[in-house]
């Protein structure tokens, strides 16, 4: 590893209306290193990245590249300076070929020689070990390969600094390994890589150095090997971690004596195969399985989010019909959807309006909640869930991911549901908020609320749920309770070993 400073950012300030998003942050990137940028949501990671890539203009501080002071006014400026970014969402065009995607929007003569481009693209792909052909349609490649093509595009533009913003969030383990190999190769070629992620294990696997931000301020820069994982987490959330382990086991036995709140027999929807499901009062259970195994589809059927085809449902022993979300809501069921942006937040509406939305729907269109009342509700939940927002009238779209999630949680809690379905409530949010949400789930269940919890992180499910329903290929393949609730057993059941 070379010790030469490639990029230095000194005293970076960035102000947003009512909020100081970055306060004198320093960041140093050396060439030939993978540098993880860590912090909770709202810590300023994305803001720092956006200042560096010209999406935002900084309000103070300076950026030097290779010792020379540079001014970045636009994403083009950043690119011309050799700073390239690959975002979480793939921003290429799926209906163009790989080579077209690699060269699109780049200065070239009027006449394009397709053959030359394809040859050049193939050469780069081969050199980087990316399993794709230049003539393939990008949309036909797997997500990981698409991501790698995006990186290849950046690399071919002579980038010195490569920013990877949550590149692994939609990849499976094999794909992550492919990506890491590519990252290591690029490091060998002297590229400085800034790696933004929420996955701690991945940071330890691939990065050389870690910079931690908290509340828009620099906490420190550390060599990865000298910073134990527990310490990293406590630096990120700014408190010691004894709380993390205090999420102890609850008394599982008592749950089984409680009355059954919801029971479905042969419930099916346009998206979900018939399945049986019960949940007791105060119980926390979960659906687990790989992506696409039918976990989300099952809970959507319970909530009536997709068209229900068949099956019988009883709530507290009484048969009911739930065919639309509003039916479920009237029976005391709340549902926090998997895709926060698409199915959760109403981005342009204020935090207040987002919080009261579900309650207002249940009250009906002819009984509007009074302004003063809605303000009181919003203030109450902003405080209770510790939502970080400039004010209750701030558009929810301008909040960080974790805080948006809390707003939606508040929306459902305000309806005082008896049964709350949380589909991936902790995806893409920081450790601190994750922990808060897990604690909240525990607290709610102690108060008698039933909760179904879905998470891609098995560890999190084990910590939160007392019963796990395992799905594979759209069918329930097992149910784990008590002593079977451990990582090995879950993995075995998911994989189809003896359960």
């Amino acid at each position: 590893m070379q010790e030469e400073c490639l990029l230095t950012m000194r005293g970076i300030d960035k102000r947003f209306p009512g909020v100081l998003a970055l306060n004198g942050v320093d960041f140093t990137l050396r060439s030939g290193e993978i540098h993880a940028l860590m912090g909770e949501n709202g810590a300023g990671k994305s803001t720092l990245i956006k200042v560096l890539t010209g999406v935002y203009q900084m309000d103070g501080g300076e950026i030097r590249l290779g010792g020379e002071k540079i001014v970045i006014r636009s994403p083009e400026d950043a690119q011309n300076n050799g700073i390239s970014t690959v975002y979480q969402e793939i921003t290429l065009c799926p209906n163009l070929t790989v080579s077209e995607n690699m060269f699109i929007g780049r200065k070239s003569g009027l006449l394009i020689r397709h053959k030359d481009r394809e040859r050049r693209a193939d050469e780069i792909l081969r050199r980087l070990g990316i399993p794709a052909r230049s003539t393939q349609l990008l949309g036909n490649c797997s997500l990981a390969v698409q991501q790698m093509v995006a990186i290849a595009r950046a690399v071919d533009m002579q980038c010195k600094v490569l920013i990877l913003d949550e590149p692994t969030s939609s990849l499976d383990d094999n794909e992550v390994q492919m990506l890491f190999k590519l990252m290591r190769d690029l490091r060998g070629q002297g590229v400085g890589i800034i790696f933004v992620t929420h996955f701690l294990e991945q940071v330890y696997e691939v990065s050389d150095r870690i910079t931690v931000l908290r509340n828009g301020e620099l906490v420190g820069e550390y060599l990865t090997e000298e910073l134990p994982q527990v310490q990293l987490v406590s630096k990120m959330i700014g408190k010691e971690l004894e709380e993390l382990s205090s999420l102890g086991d609850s008394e599982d036995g008592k749950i089984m004596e409680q009355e059954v709140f919801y029971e479905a027999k042969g419930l099916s929807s346009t998206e979900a195969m018939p399945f049986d499901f019960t949940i007791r009062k105060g119980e926390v259970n979960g659906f687990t399985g790989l992506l696409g195994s039918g976990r989300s589809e099952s809970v959507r059927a319970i909530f009536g989010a997709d068209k229900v085809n068949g099956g019988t449902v009883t709530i507290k022993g009484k048969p009911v019909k739930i065919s639309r979300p509003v039916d479920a809501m009237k029976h005391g069921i709340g549902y926090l959807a998997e895709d926060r942006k698409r199915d959760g937040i109403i981005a342009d509406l204020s935090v207040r309006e987002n919080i009261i939305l579900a309650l207002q729907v249940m009250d009906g269109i002819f009984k509007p909640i009074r302004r003063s009342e809605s303000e009181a509700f919003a203030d109450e939940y902003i405080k209770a869930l510790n939502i970080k927002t400039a004010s209750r009238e701030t558009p929810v779209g301008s909040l960080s991911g974790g805080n948006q999630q809390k707003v939606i949680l508040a929306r459902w809690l305000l309806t005082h549901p008896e049964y709350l379905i949380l589909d991936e409530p902790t995806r893409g949010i920081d450790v601190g908020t994750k922990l808060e949400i897990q604690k909240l789930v525990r607290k709610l269940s102690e108060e008698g609320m039933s909760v179904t919890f879905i998470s891609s992180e098995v560890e999190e499910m084990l910590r939160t749920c007392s019963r796990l329903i395992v799905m594979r290929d759209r069918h329930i393949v097992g149910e784990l309770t008590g002593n079977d609730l451990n990582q090995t057993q879950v993995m075995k059941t998911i994989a189809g070993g003896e359960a």
Partner: protein
Amino acid sequence: MKKIGRKRFRGGLGQLTIPIIAIAILAVFNLIRDPGFFEIGIAHNSDGNAVLSGNIISIINGASELAILAIGMTLVTAACGGQDISVGAAAAIAGSVFVKVLKSVPTVNGGTVLFAFVFACVVAMLFGAFNGILVAVFRIQPMIATLILYTCGRSIAYWINGGATPTIASPILSAIGGFIPGIPLPTPVIIVVAMAILFKLLFHFTSLELFTQSVGINGAAARLNGINPTLIKLLSFVLLGVCVSVSGCIGVSRLGLINHETLLLDIEMDTILAVAIGGNSLGGGRFKIGGSILGAYVIQTLTITLYAMKVSSTNVKAYKAVVIVLLVVMGSPVVKKRFSSFITRLSENRRKGLAKGAEE
């Protein structure tokens, strides 16, 4: 994160800034051009009533139909992210029905006029529902869906009265289209105020505003929160139908006849423009009814100003276009953003200056 300064973003431009600035500029321009432009006089109309007259009165009077249509169009725009281009044609239908009913009753009196209006209103609401079903249920783009009624609406209006352009003279109609004896303000202006209050009350006593905005911003999320987006979109078209029938009946009452070819001709584009000038996003979502009404008055002020400058009616449209380009650019996100950051910088400099002064 740390809070700095005030709660609200002081540099931010409110939604109503552009229409208010536009009216102010037009007013100043007219004052310089002709100080008598804003004079309000008292005239006596043919019935011998003392009524207000002057350019201001003809502006707010002339913009009435446009303002009422703009109210409904704002709702459709907010819920569906698209516009209804059939409002002019639908108003011709409503007007024809209004006249047809009045022609078929033995006497024209208060009761029968009300009955004819309610009848016209129901018909317009049905046509609104037709558009609404195409948009909300079949998910056809609003402009394409309403193109159908835009094309055939005036033919339907033609059939209703068998091709004729019947006249209908009645003191009640001239009171609706002109002045109520004893009240110096034109009745259409009073109707605009009544409609604005009606919608304000609708938003006060229901949560339609919140639901409409939710559907317009994120329909999928609104559905998962128990809102029925289909119903909300349909409802917006039906409410626009109410506005359509009110403007159609005002139009008929002004002239005392129905001309299916010319009644509120080309008003749909001005309506959409009024919504846009009012600072509402034509892509749906957040809206302000007041903005659209102001937008309607801006358009009418512009027209009257040009006429007052003796611009011929053929040329008026070209001059209007120039001003409207300016307004739309002023209201564009790019200019707004530039302007806000300019204001922020100014206030920051001032704060720094103050701090310096305090140190000294």
